[in-house]
């Protein structure tokens, strides 16, 4: 193992997270870019900041790295307040969207840069550079210049360049943006495995939900400067905390309903418990709905369009009151699907798996 991270040595009480973002706020002029963002990241955890452009995810990353100062709140690493610590003393390593490799230096000199700046030279520096390059399988590329490498190789140099200084937290700003789609997904899996193997704590920034689902132990969904929900990918998908999260991640069906007395009626005749009352909206994932013959239920509609995607059939159904829904069912061998235009009844498979949100 080439990378002996000082994690075990410097580990404080297990209750202190590696990274604690405490109610961080940031304004640019009159615009609030971040508002009371709080997030704890544990040892060895990969957390993704996910949201559309302009949601503040990159600003939050830059506050952690120290390129920006937070106006409110604090960023702590191993319990230490990073506020007074300048950029070049923070124990973080940043992988930039553009990789920002130094074009006038060879790969080896790029990787050795952080060591040189700290006055580490000679045999130790050589050993650590070789170790970092081996970690990303670029041991034979030390003499090349960045412009002589492919996009994927450049990304690995950018990673090796920060690994060599053994950061406590790895920060990655949309690191796959510069790669073509084909390379992207294989690099995602590779990078996750590498980070896990090294036991690093990492924060990813992305606007691509598939990338977030692939990479993360936990996803923090951001919207207009706030963190809407931070949870493991499955939990985000299954139990989205807000309608926004449900809409942002995966496909979701929404319809309006009225709750009273602790329950809300579902259109197929079932009921679901809820703490909300009055006007609400209900969300169901396409695979929590199923279709049957029209006479089998009271929630009716007709198939607008359907297509088969491998083992899955995707139906677009318009209900009798004009709501468009998506239904996904596993394809049964030899069973004929409902044709376009067919009258159907809709059923909710598991009412507890529906989410109830206050009407927006």
């Amino acid at each position, binding site marked *: 193992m080439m990378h002996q991270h000082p994690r075990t040595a410097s580990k404080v009480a297990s209750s202190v997270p590696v990274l604690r973002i405490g109610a961080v706020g940031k304004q640019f002029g009159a615009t609030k870019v971040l508002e009371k963002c709080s997030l704890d990241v544990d040892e060895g955890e990969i957390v993704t900041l996910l949201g559309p452009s302009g949601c503040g995810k990159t600003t939050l990353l830059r506050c952690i*790295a120290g390129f920006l100062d937070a106006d409110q709140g604090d960023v702590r690493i191993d319990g230490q307040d990073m506020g007074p610590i300048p*950029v*070049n003393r923070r124990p973080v390593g940043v992988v*930039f969207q553009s990789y920002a490799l*130094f*074009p006038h230096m060879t790969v080896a000199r790029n990787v050795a840069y952080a060591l040189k*700046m700290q006055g580490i030279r000679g045999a130790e520096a050589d050993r650590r550079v070789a170790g970092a390059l081996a970690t990303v399988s670029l041991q034979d590329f030390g003499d090349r210049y960045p*412009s002589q490498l492919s996009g994927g190789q450049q990304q690995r140099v950018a990673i090796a360049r*920060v690994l060599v200084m053994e950061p406590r937290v790895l920060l990655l700003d949309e690191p796959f943006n510069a790669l073509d789609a084909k390379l992207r997904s294989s690099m995602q899996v590779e990078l996750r495995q590498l980070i896990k193997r090294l036991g690093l704590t990492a924060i990813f920034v992305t606007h691509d939900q598939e990338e977030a689902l692939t990479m993360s132990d936990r996803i923090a969904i951001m919207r207009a400067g706030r963190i809407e929900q931070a949870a493991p990918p499955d939990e985000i998908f299954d139990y989205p905390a807000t309608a926004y999260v449900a809409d942002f991640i995966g496909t979701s069906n929404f319809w309006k309903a009225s709750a009273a007395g602790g329950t809300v009626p579902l259109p197929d005749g079932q009921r679901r418990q809820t703490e909300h009352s009055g006007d609400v909206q209900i969300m169901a994932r396409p695979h929590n709905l199923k279709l049957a013959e029209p006479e089998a239920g009271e929630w009716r509609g007709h198939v607008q369009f359907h297509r088969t995607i491998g083992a899955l059939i995707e139906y677009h159904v318009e209900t009798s009151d004009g709501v468009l829904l998506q239904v996904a069912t596993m394809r049964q061998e030899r069973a004929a699907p409902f044709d376009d235009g067919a009258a159907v009844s809709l059923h909710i498979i598991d009412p507890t798996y529906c989410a109830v949100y206050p009407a927006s």
Partner: protein
Amino acid sequence: MTALRKYSLGDIFGVGLIFAVGLFTLLLLVAPSIIVVIISFDTRAFVSFPPEGFTLRWYAEVFQQGELVEAMANSLQVGLTVTVLCILLGVPTALACARGRFKGTTALSVFVLVPHMVPGIVLGVAVLFAGALVGVSPSIWLQSISITVFILAVMVRTVQSRLVRLDPALEEAAANLRATPFQSLRTVTFPLLMPAILAGAVFTFVEGFDNLSVAIFTHGFRDRPLPVELLALVQYTSSPLVAAVSGVQIVLAIAALIAVSLSIGLDNVNE
């Protein structure tokens, strides 16, 4: 055959036109220099074209005339001084204009440009009077400083435009990789600015060496620079001697350009 078919007659005509215009422009730019060089080898003692013979006599004479050699040395000194001053003043100014977070960065970059907009003669006269006011008489140093003021904008603009095109993430990366602001400047920013600084150095050196309009008012009485010496020469004589001096200058200029393009080493500076 297939390659030819891709182009219509109009395309061929268009390309031909562009080629012709380019060739004409090139001729316009190069022809005077070529004619001067040809004249400098003429055997006759007056300037005329076409030449009637071939001799190196004028070149020998250039180096035998004490005033000319001295003027060349003076201009060389001015050129080098202007270059050094422009690097020392221009690079930090460009950094301040492009990276500064204080108010007035725009004002600063306009302010630097102003002396360059003023006609050189006006600047020269102004420096002469201002110098007289504070008791500084014309000298090789006053000449160097006034040409520096005149040409500083070129260095600032050249470096600034390169700075603006540099990925700001490069300097952030250096900071993240434990570099202090000064280390980042020395190891990342300066090396990447080098091509621009060298290009600026060539421009400012040529101006320092060749400037007449500012120099004519500010040069020292005993330290005549080459352009002033040449002006005097063409006023009173019309021998191909002047052409020979120009020939020497042309050779020097070409040598400098070759040296620069070799030292920048275009392969390592691409972004």
